[in-house]
């Protein structure tokens, strides 16, 4: 059974409420419908109820497959405003919040923050930037983290790592040139993401062109500083480095190059790149030469799961990403 099939099975056991602020988009509605009727999620369509109902009818779907939330329902909006503004650590007050809720994406995120939904899924009409910014304003960044970021999950044929053919990598999509604090945040979030999605015990390597001081320079200093910060912030997590990639994932190389105890060296299941140049090139190498399937990017670092999808994604890919985000949300609840 492939990793994505396993994730689909997991979703069925505990379907989560997913809010779709781009409900009218044809591909999004189809993906929501399929994921809902197949039992993976409980789809909530957020928008103008009349328009949504007309689109459902026109496209031949069963209306009862969805929960529909009308953004024009003033009573419901008042309930959301009340719930949201009573949450600890929320910054926006009623007037500013209502102004932001004119936007469907932010309306859906307010629902999620107020526990009326478990996931907000968007990104087909909205840009990734819209989703990231709205997520930061409405859902917020997890306490202690300096940035939001992303990871991808690679299924690499022929790779025999500590999780079989799977390896989580980050950040290959969001954070361009992280400073040490931000790099530490990426590593910490990545560990939490793989725990909630895959039930892995994370072993996270921060990689560089040097292994434990074999090289010197500011590019390496950034990585060693990040490892130090991450260990101080989250001593419960196994985050180590700096390692070269081979020392991170290959036990034989680790034995040669890593001359101290490490829970991570040689058996890392999460690899953190020093910046986006490396991250983007690396994921392309894994895909092009390793013939890997890469799932993601999965956004991380928000207080609750926010998910973005590629604007050109086909329905099958959107559905996969919806289900992944639902399983992550269920995993975070269990913590």
């Amino acid at each position: 059974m492939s990793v994505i099939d396993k994730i689909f099975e997991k979703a069925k056991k505990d379907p989560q409420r997913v809010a779709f602020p781009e409900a009218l988009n044809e591909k999004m509605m189809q993906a929501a419908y399929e994921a809902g009727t197949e039992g993976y999620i409980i789809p909530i369509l957020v928008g103008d109820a009349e328009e949504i109902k007309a689109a459902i009818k026109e496209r031949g779907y069963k209306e009862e497959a969805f929960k529909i939330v009308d953004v024009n329902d003033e009573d419901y909006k008042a309930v959301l405003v009340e719930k949201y503004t009573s949450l600890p650590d929320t910054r926006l007050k009623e007037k500013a919040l209502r102004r932001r809720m004119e936007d469907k994406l932010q309306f859906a995120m307010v629902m999620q923050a107020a526990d009326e939904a478990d996931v907000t899924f968007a990104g087909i009409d909205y840009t990734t930037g819209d989703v990231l910014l709205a997520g930061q304003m409405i859902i917020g960044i997890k306490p202690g983290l300096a940035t939001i970021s992303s990871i991808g999950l690679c299924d690499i044929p022929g790779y025999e790592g500590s999780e079989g053919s799977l390896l989580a990598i980050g950040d290959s999509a969001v954070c361009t040139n992280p400073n040490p604090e931000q790099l530490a945040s990426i590593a910490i979030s990545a560990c939490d993401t793989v725990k909630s999605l895959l039930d892995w015990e994370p072993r996270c390597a921060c990689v560089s062109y040097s292994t434990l001081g074999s090289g010197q320079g500011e590019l390496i200093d950034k990585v060693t500083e990040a490892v130090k910060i991450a260990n101080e912030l989250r001593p419960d997590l196994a985050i180590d480095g700096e390692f070269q990639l081979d020392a991170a994932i290959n036990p034989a190389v680790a034995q040669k190059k890593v001359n101290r105890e490490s829970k991570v060296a040689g058996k890392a299941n999460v690899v953190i790149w020093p910046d986006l140049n490396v991250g983007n090139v690396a994921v392309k190498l894994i895909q092009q030469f390793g013939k890997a399937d890469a799932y993601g990017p999965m956004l991380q670092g928000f207080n609750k799961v926010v998910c973005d999808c590629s604007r050109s994604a086909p329905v099958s890919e959107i559905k996969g990403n919806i289900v992944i985000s639902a399983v992550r949300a269920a995993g975070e609840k269990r913590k």
Partner: protein
Amino acid sequence: MERQEILDQVLNMVAMAYKKDVADLSESTSFKTDLGGASVQMVALVSEIENELDVALMLADASGCETIADLIDLIEEEM
């Protein structure tokens, strides 16, 4: 609202969001080099501006401001 009045309020908000002494801040204070804040602080600042000055700001526009003066310009445009 006069620019000076906006400036006074924003300086206080910046001081709060970035945990700095308001006396050390001015229009020429740079977000990147002087404050070195992460996006968490900018989110707090934008929320506070929206709450107190009754304007809608795009987080992306606010994050693009080099100095506090640029941010005041942006707020004035939105008012």
